[in-house]
């Protein structure tokens, strides 16, 4: 696309770098901003800069936080001995949305994947072990993606726990048939896994 203004084309360029935004959508957004009062646009830009500059990561769980320690870790009514290990902030949000989890978190920042250059040292794994060594954790809930990479990461953490003889219970999220789903629509792998890990009838 050719634009009569370099200012416009630069802005379109910047917007189209965002995930899920093509050139056409970028142009629509830029033209929209162009029609807004200058104060609103200034506010828009500054909000984003402030977000990027002042965001912190909780020094305990590595979740995104406004202060040194996040609101979940500093919440007195949360059970501090129960830690749910997740990949990213998005997983924290998903579990928080259930409003049913009373423990705290540990955000790894991803899963082990040598192909993408991600080894254990690039993840928050040693900080997890420091937390465990301090002795206040009794259970780790592994809530990583059910992929080969997720499974390998769980295996690795578990192996290291055994090696260092750390006494902590490790549990996994149950994997199986989704709630309210009809059996005929469940894929074979999920179904065979659900059969293998079947539960006693309550």
């Amino acid at each position, binding site marked *: 696309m050719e634009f009569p203004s370099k200012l416009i084309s630069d802005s379109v360029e910047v917007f189209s770098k965002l995930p899920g935004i093509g050139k056409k959508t970028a142009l629509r957004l830029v033209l929209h901003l162009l029609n807004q009062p200058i104060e609103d646009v200034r506010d828009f830009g500054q909000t984003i800069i402030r977000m990027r500059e002042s965001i912190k990561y909780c020094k305990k769980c590595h979740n995104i936080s406004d202060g040194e320690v996040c609101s979940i870790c500093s919440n007195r009514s949360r059970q501090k001995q129960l830690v749910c290990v997740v990949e990213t902030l998005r997983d924290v949000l998903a579990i928080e949305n259930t409003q049913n989890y009373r423990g705290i978190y540990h955000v790894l920042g991803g899963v082990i994947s040598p192909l993408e250059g991600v080894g254990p040292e690039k993840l928050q794994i040693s900080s997890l072990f420091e937390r465990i060594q301090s002795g206040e954790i009794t259970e780790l809930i592994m809530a990583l993606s059910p992929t*080969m990479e997720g499974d390998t990461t769980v295996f690795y953490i578990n*192996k290291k726990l055994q090696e260092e003889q750390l006494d902590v219970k490790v549990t996994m999220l149950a994997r199986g048939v989704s709630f309210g789903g009809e059996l005929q629509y469940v894929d074979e792998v999920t179904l065979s896994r659900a059969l293998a890990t079947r539960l006693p009838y309550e």
Partner: protein
Amino acid sequence: MRIEKLNLANFKNYPELMVDFNKGINIITGLNGAGKTNLLDAIYYLCFTKSYYQNSDSQNILHENNYFRVEGAFCKDTDPDAAQNTAISVAFMKGKKKQVDKNKVVYDKISDHIGFCPLVLIEPDDVQIIKGGSKERRKLMDTALSQVDREYLLAYMKYERTRSQRNALLKQFAERRTFDENLILGYDQQLISSGNLIYEKRKTILAALNPIFLDFYEILSGGKEKVEFHYNSVLNDLSFEECLLKNREKDRIMQRTTAGIHGDDWAFEIKDHPLKKLGSQGQQKSFLIALKLALHQYLKKERNTNPLLLLDDIFDKLDVERIEMLLKLVTGEDFGQVFITDTDGERLESLLVNRKTDYQHFKINSGKLL
């Protein structure tokens, strides 16, 4: 299954094509380069979402265009009037992701489509399966297994993914001069679980295939010579766990996973010797055709539907007796829809007329139906 209609746009040498196929035998004739093989490849695309010949999708676009589309209407064998069609479409545009859809619903994962319509292709370059490396033979059998068993396909994809991760890890260990056993073990146990499943399923297909194969070989060769078909796996002698442990040092030095079911081979033997060394050309051809026909019958039994059978340009290299025998087989009741290409239509037609078989003849010239 059978394919009722095929529509092409900018696919290989076809600017556009609309064709209705016969339920049984379809003969496609034309000069070399007319597009006979391309037509078969289009059918292959609809079953496997990729070309048999070309790894890159963009290479299948007609010159000076930026997309191609292949569409087909499929129906069950048990549906003689094609009352219920399933529309499959594969479309690719340069710079975009390939899109495969079934009755206008786009697949999230393209691999979910594999196995929708089983297919067996026999073509002149098949001798590579005998003469070439083990990779060709594994591809043949893995393709067959993936068409009947989703669990196999998923285990296979997981195995390959794990192997690339493990290889990348071994490379990093070598570069950084470190080693972390816990990390390697993480990949090992994933290789073991998916690898054992692959191993067991390969043994199962061998057992199911062997008797059918031997029957077909006897019919095709009229032969008395002893032929055999084996599965040689590293796991025949030791467990996968032992295998990985035994090769750990070697893997570290070579910076890749040296041993595993990814190196397994299928051995073809005649009179207790490798077919590639001792078999005559005729014996090698009979062996391969018998094996592929056996795969057809195996797929048919497992999937409870007739696979499509594509015979690409194979009559040129076969003697008349074998051609007649093969036509007798594939026009019989054990086979469903068949596509046969040849440069010489008359030879093929005279053979089919003798057999009183219902067939349809499509003549092709430079990407057009005559």
